[in-house]
């Protein structure tokens, strides 16, 4: 297994489970399951035992590995020098399971759907661009930016609204951009974190070739997960294009006066998506957008930025739901944390977080008191 | 070439006894000054050997070409008179021991030596250092070891310095810009005085900064602020470079406040005093120095030596004076650093 030389170095001291100030446990699976085995230290010790044949590949072991939301709270708070590789180690163990063909059915189904149909929704690839219907968003033909949507924004009803919302703002601002529509392919970030390295490489190389062929030099992604794949893993495969998240572009457009704003009165709290924040260090852009809207009062959740609690959708769980629901599921804890701030709106900047927290609001019966909106959707409400 | 020899005859005829009379830490009159120096040179005991705080200043006070400080240092060493507690000396000797953990940038003819001051890697950026970076060296392997003069241990300097010179030699560099007075002094004067051949030209970073600022003159926006300069002990090893402080300040529009403890009268940052002599003297010197800065309206305290900055940085900040390193001040003048809320007068 890749990173095998690191697994024995965990002392299981447990700093990885906490926020920086020890305010609360912040590992999504540990918060839910409460056995040490579901914490980063537990995983490290079990992976080692598994590699040494001291435990077998059981269903529970698979659950322990695949429930990890790869949220990188452990990477942020581990005290050892190998901290940066913690998520990589868990993904490497998943890769080994995938290569041995022993994976939970939900993971298998996700990967199969991508392999066969190109997306996890079992929808035709030709319908990837359907979300643009009724808008004047154009196909990419050499504009300054390629707006990359990803599977969730292309097919999920909630996420499609977010794609339209961002698209609308780009149009309003006069940004030169186009989309791939039916020619877009899955970015593969979740394929990668679910351990299917071969399929990921195929997807990545196909995308890199396509982006090169059509001359896309600047890519703006709707989904932080795609941003992550492009920024980190595509680079390793030779990609040279620049990548931005939509919030970075929107913040820039607001700064340069291209998005005229009136006001929108609301108390808003911002939930940091793991793949935007901890994984890629983008904390300020979405906040800058919110703060630029007259009337928006930005309230801080106790756990924010590098200490934000994951919505529970990371690491493929958005599709596989191995982490699962219940009152201690991270999504539900997160909306309760948002409620504590006195906010009316939970702002997000990731289509996966939007859906996860929407579902959590319903489960918590909070839909009357709170609303989950993408930063762009709030911006649209504030347009002059 | 600098000779570090000592001629007692010069003391016997010295009309001023400046070396000890001007000393800020010993109370000695003209007559006594001559007597004590002669005693020391003759190998006799003197309270000076016990009480000298190693500020190096007598090297500068003596205008007759003698080297009182090196004499005191050598005698202390011969007699086994410790300046610092044994454990402190050991700690410092340990710190300078090469560990194979040095860093070398992209070496060209001209190289910047960060000595053993890792904090500088963050500072030596931007246009001022365009000519040099990333041609730099850092680590104990390139550390001049002159700090051990403070501990009256020239033996270790003489033992380690040739190896350091060899390390530079193996890089094949022609010119080295040194980021510390001690380093510059080590290669510009001490090594030759010890009979070691230095195969490159040593440049003081003040001189380098001054030249670069002249090149970048168009970019300078005068800072229009008042600053005190904390002159380090080691600046006495290269008094001929001290004028660059004023030259640079003039270029960047900084007014050096005319305070009591400046230039030749500079006070020790107190770091070495607390290491070697305890609370009272260190506290007294520090308090006088800070009060002097405040009294003369300094907004900034400009540091040269990182040890001074470590010792005094937080203290000056408490008095409402912003601590800043000379490099950062220069970078501020060409717009690379913001003044962080300190309003220019």
């Amino acid at each position, binding site marked *: 297994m890749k990173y095998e030389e690191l697994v024995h170095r965990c002392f299981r001291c447990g700093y990885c489970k906490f926020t920086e100030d020890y305010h609360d446990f912040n590992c999504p699976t540990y918060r839910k399951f409460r056995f040490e085995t579901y914490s980063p230290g537990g995983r490290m010790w079990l992976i080692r035992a598994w590699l040494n044949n001291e435990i077998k590949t059981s269903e529970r072991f698979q659950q322990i590995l695949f429930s990890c939301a790869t949220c990188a709270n452990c990477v942020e708070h581990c005290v*050892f020098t190998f901290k940066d590789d913690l998520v990589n180690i868990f993904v490497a163990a998943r890769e080994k399971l995938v290569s041995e063909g022993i994976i939970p059915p939900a993971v298998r189904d996700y990967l199969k759907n991508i392999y066969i149909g190109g997306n996890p929704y079992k929808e035709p690839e030709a319908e990837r661009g359907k979300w643009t219907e009724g808008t004047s968003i154009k196909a990419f033909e050499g504009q300054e930016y390629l707006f990359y949507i990803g599977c969730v924004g292309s097919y999920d009803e909630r996420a499609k609204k977010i794609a339209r919302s961002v698209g609308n703002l780009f149009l309003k601002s006069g940004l030169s951009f186009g989309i791939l529509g039916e020619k877009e392919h899955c970015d593969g970030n979740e394929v990668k974190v679910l351990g299917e390295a071969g399929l990921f490489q195929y997807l990545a190389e196909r995308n890199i070739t396509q982006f090169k062929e059509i001359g896309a030099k600047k890519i703006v992604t709707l989904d932080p997960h795609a941003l992550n794949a492009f920024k980190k893993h595509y680079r390793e495969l030779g990609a040279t294009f620049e990548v931005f998240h939509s919030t970075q572009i929107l913040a820039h457009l607001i700064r340069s006066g291209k998005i005229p704003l009136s006001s929108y009165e609301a108390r808003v709290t911002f939930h940091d998506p793991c793949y935007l924040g901890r994984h890629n260090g983008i904390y300020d852009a979405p906040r800058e957008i919110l703060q630029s809207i007259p009337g928006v009062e930005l309230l801080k959740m106790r756990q924010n930025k590098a200490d934000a609690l994951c919505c529970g959708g990371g690491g493929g769980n958005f599709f596989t739901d191995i982490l699962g629901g219940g009152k201690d599921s991270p999504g539900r804890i997160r909306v309760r944390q948002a409620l504590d701030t006195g906010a009316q709106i939970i702002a997000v900047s990731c289509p996966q977080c939007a859906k996860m927290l929407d579902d959590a609001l319903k489960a918590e019966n909070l839909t009357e008191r709170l609303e989950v909106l993408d930063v762009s959707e709030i911006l649209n409400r504030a347009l002059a | 070439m600098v000779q570090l020899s000592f001629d007692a005859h010069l003391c016997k005829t010295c009309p001023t006894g400046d070396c000890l009379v001007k000393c800020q830490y010993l109370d000695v009159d003209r007559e006594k000054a001559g007597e004590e120096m002669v005693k020391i040179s003759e190998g006799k005991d003197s309270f000076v050997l016990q009480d000298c705080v190693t500020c190096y200043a007598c090297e500068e006070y003596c205008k007759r070409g003698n080297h009182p400080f090196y004499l005191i240092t050598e005698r202390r060493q011969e007699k086994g008179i410790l300046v610092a507690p044994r454990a402190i000396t050991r700690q410092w000797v340990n710190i300078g021991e090469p560990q194979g953990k040095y860093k070398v940038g992209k070496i060209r003819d001209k190289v910047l030596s960060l000595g053993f001051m890792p904090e500088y890697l963050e500072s030596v950026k931007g246009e001022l250092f365009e000519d040099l970076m990333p041609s730099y060296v850092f680590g104990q392997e390139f550390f001049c070891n002159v700090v051990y003069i403070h501990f009256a241990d020239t033996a270790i300097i003489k033992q380690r310095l040739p190896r350091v010179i060899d390390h530079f030699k193996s890089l094949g560099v022609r010119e080295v810009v040194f980021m510390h007075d001690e380093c510059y002094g080590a290669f510009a004067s001490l090594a030759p005085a010890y009979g070691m051949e230095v195969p490159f030209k040593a440049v003081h970073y003040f001189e380098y900064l001054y030249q670069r600022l002249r090149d970048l003159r168009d970019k300078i926006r005068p800072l229009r602020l008042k600053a005190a300069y904390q002159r380090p002990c080691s600046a006495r090893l290269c008094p001929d470079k001290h004028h660059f402080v004023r030259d640079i300040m003039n270029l960047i529009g900084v007014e050096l406040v005319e305070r009591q403890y400046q230039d030749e009268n500079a006070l020790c940052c107190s770091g070495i005093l607390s290491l070697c002599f305890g609370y009272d003297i260190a506290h007294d010197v520090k308090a006088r120095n800070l009060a002097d800065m405040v009294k003369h309206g300094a907004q900034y305290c400009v540091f040269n030596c990182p040890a001074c900055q470590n010792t005094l940085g937080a203290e000056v900040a408490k008095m409402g004076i912003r601590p800043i390193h000379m490099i950062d001040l220069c970078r501020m003048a060409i717009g690379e650093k913001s003044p962080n809320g300190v309003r220019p007068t």
Partner: protein
Amino acid sequence: MKNILQALADAVGRDYVSDQPEEMYFYARDPGLMPPHQPDYVVVPGTVEEIQTVVRLASREKIPIVPMGAGMALTGLIIPLKGGIVLDMKRMNRILEVHEKARYALVEGGTSQGFLKSYLEEHHPRLRHSIPDSPATATIAANVMIHGQGRLTQQYGFNSDMVSGLEVVLASGEICRIGSCAVSPDWFSKGAPFPDLSGLFLGWFGATGIITKIAVKLYPRKKMRDVEIFLTDDEELVPSMIYELTHTEMVEDINIFVQPRPMIFRGNHHIALFFTGDTDEELEFKRKLIWHALDPYIKSKDGGFMGIPPVMKPTLLDMPQKSVSRFADVKKGGGFEYSGPIILVEKYPQCARKIVELAARYDLGYSGMARIIGRGHSMMYGFAFTFNRADSEMMARTRSALCEISLFVLELGGVFWKPTVEEQKMALEKMDPNTRALMKMIKANLDPLGIMNPGNWEVA
């Protein structure tokens, strides 16, 4: 056994019981060097009532039951030596009350040091508790159960001396309150003025009962905190230096460390002195007194205060000190283990020489760390060795070195802190026979079936 699993599930909920190989593997061991032994079940209870039900079940079925906090003692005290149930207490982590004026906090038995610290900083910024340097996941209850020490130990003694009340579930499943809380709603004293029954539980590692609630004393938290480090190369002088320092009554905490790496630390003894103040003036006053206390040693050149680089300060002032955990990976191997006897401060020179001697003989990376307990009444001397978990030979050498220390400590008049089962036996053997008999009587009466963390404090 299926019935037991079901019964446990009925008690705490199916999600919080496991008999699966993954949990059995993990909960069979702690991060130290003691041999593992698997439990039969791991249970993560959420309430005192659930614990009572589990204990009654264990009692009925004569199944061993082992309470566990974070498992950071490293000496195997949470390893279920005879199988049975491991009770992972960390789901019970609520802070139930902080009495600001009476300066105590009442928390559940699985509350971590980190939680309480963070809670106090946020809600009671003028109060603090005595934080140990074990990782922040370590629990308050487990720490006093092993008579841990913390940042306020030089001032107020062992952390267990700062307990002001306990709620315990006995082997019978009954709840028992210890201290003022037994007769009053207030948790201000663990015993006085009545007979102090806390000794029936503290230091027993769960062999006499399970702590489900604990009140600990809180102390003034000053706005500022600083640290100075005094160096000496002469271990013989350390006890006198400590005597002078403790006399000032100005110091919060005194730690003495000696370690070969990094080079800056080689060959010296470092007396780290932490002190606090609400104003610059107060802090400076204390600093001055502390420095003056050691003036004679500076004059004689036997010691001096080092200049602490500003970048080093946050590491030193960290609570808990994360660097303590980092020691585990010095050999890139994720392990360390230490023997930490409680012993007179005047034995410092012998201890300091012993660790260097053993490290050399067994070729081990080491760190010696003493923490002064009370005003020099004793100290904990930690003989710590770091090892590579993937190197069984190095682990064996570490075990041997630690065994030698056990013998050395007893001979020197020290007593074991959080002793391994072997050390417990050694201590019981050396113990006054009447004391031993008293311990036996207590254990037999509180745990007649021998199900409470069996193997620990068992008098033959």
